């Protein structure tokens, strides 16, 4: 009888709703921390976040990132602080989207969007330079002709996507420990995922060196206060000097 039971099992299946997602027409929702194509972010005042420190290039396991830093022009600074990313290239034929560069970045400059559906017809197109990676003046990622951006693919590209907080700890829920970016502002923190009284919850003053550098570059002192906007570039430069 179990012989016929098997037929009953398969016989019922055609009447069940299909599990297939008709891919190009309908797509599954992407996870919030999906690793897609990179973007180079800017601060809300339009300054570039990248300082040309090459930490991303150093940590990249696929060796697909090439960065050269340069001193900021004093009269027209590109980024707050002394240096800025003069050359920034990612070879997407090598990138494995591990997100290590995002974790390593001290200034939350490089993050990953949700866009993964794109293809190239030659190798030059695969090497993205600053011209393609850097968000435009409205803070939106530049949508290249061979890329298929869907609504929502550009969301959540702030340092919020990182696995660890700026302090190096995983417990950053419930507190905003990242800067805002041009066009989107500050992404609110997720609530209720960790207990503030737990041991791995970072104290207010427990800042890592990286975070202190980051704050200093953004013109925020050790007290966590931001000076008046307008003289932030000069102020930060003076602070680190």
């Amino acid at each position, binding site marked *: 009888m179990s012989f016929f039971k098997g037929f009953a099992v398969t016989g019922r*299946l055609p009447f069940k709703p299909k599990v297939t997602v008709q891919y190009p027409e309908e797509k599954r929702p992407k996870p919030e921390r999906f690793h897609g194509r990179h973007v180079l972010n800017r601060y809300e005042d339009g300054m570039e976040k990248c300082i040309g420190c090459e930490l991303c290039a150093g940590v990249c396991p696929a060796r697909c990132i090439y960065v050269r830093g340069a001193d900021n022009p004093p009269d027209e600074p590109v980024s707050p602080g002394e240096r800025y990313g003069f050359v920034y290239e990612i070879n997407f034929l090598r990138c494995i989207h591990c997100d290590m560069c995002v974790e390593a970045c001290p200034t939350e400059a490089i993050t990953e969007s949700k866009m993964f559906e794109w293809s190239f017809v030659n190798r030059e197109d695969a090497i993205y330079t600053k011209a393609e990676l850097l968000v435009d003046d409205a803070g939106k990622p530049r949508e290249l002709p061979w890329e298929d951006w869907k609504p929502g693919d550009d969301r959540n590209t702030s340092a919020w996507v990182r696995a660890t907080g700026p302090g190096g700890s995983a417990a950053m829920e419930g507190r905003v420990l990242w800067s805002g970016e041009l066009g989107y502002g500050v992404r609110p923190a997720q609530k209720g995922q960790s207990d503030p009284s737990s041991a791995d919850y970072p104290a207010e003053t427990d800042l890592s060196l990286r975070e202190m550098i980051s704050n200093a570059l953004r013109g925020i002192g050790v007290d966590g206060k931001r000076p008046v906007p307008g003289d932030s570039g000069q102020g930060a430069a003076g602070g680190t000097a």
Partner: protein
Amino acid sequence: MGDPVFVNGLDLAVWLILLVKVVVIFVIVLVSVLFMVMYERKAVAWLGVRYGPNRAGPNGWLQSLADGTKLLFKEAFMPRGADKPIYRIAPYLMLIPVFLTFSIVPLGGTITIAGHITRLQLADPSWGILFLLMCSGVAVYGVMLAGWASGSKYPLLGSVRATAQMVSYEAVLGLTIATVVVVTSSLRTSAIVRAQHGGFLYHWNFIHTLILPFVLFAVAITAEMTRPPFDLVEAEEELSGGYNLEYSSIDFAWFYLAEYAALVTNSAIIVTLWFGGPDGPRIAGNSIGPVWFAIKVLIILYIYVWVRATLPRLRYDQLMDLGWKRMIPLSLAMLMIVAGFQITPTSTSSSPVARFFVEREWGLLAILASVVLFVLFTLAIEVGKGATDVDAAYEARLAEEGDE
């Protein structure tokens, strides 16, 4: 008895009608193969909670056409050790019998073309259904020679399996067809169909032969076609493809075509032999035989796919056990029983029970003999099992080794 188109001799019109019929049958088989490949892929997808191919053409129904076109443009490859003439001829040895088989299938009643009445059937020889056995016998050569001529070991193993399997199950085919022939007392396919007319379901052979021969026939013809669950002939895991492994391009396409044409043709044969062929209720007084025929074939085809999606593949020894130890004795017993009850009783008794048993001594004798033979046969198998049961022998050896 023959086709009424021949009553006035052979003139040009008759020849033309025959030519048109040949072409139509050929096209029907070809188109039904294109359809069947898609139907199977769709149905097996439905049975897997998927949609199946749905990109090429309307809802994906042109996918098999695209696949076939791709196959034609591939490189025709032949291994160095191949036996060239046999290697080239083997696909046709498999393909032609399948097309020939379809010519004896009655698709409906008669139609009138230019004053000539003709049957919706290409050929209606008096030895009709034996033609099926002949064709399936020839198809074995295709498989055998394809495996042999490839000059490669996996195809050879596959073809050895296939040959043994097809030859074994041919006996069951013959015995179950004999049951139908006994009931309808004719080998002519048109006569077999006509004998089943007159009542939807009630007069069909699968009822008249007590269902079991139909089941045996269906299993045997599945094995004959090497369809799942009897597809160990082309087990990818063991033989990486079986007898057609060394074929590509158009030659492989012929094998593929032959396989699916055989599926459609044999479903048509099943419908003809057991389910009344084009028999079915008339719609508004019109006989719609071909429509009923198509519906029945579609249902049989779906069942084939359903079986494929459900049952796991049999092992080689299980296949042989099923064939020789179960199905051949059973089909022989069913032939005896059905034949035994064919003598029409002339009793005038009013009681239906009495009418059934009086003058049925041959039938009762057949049942008795079948039971006795079956018991004896089962006993023989049990006695011989110790020597042939692979699993038991293996376990016994394990236990022995454990003791040492």
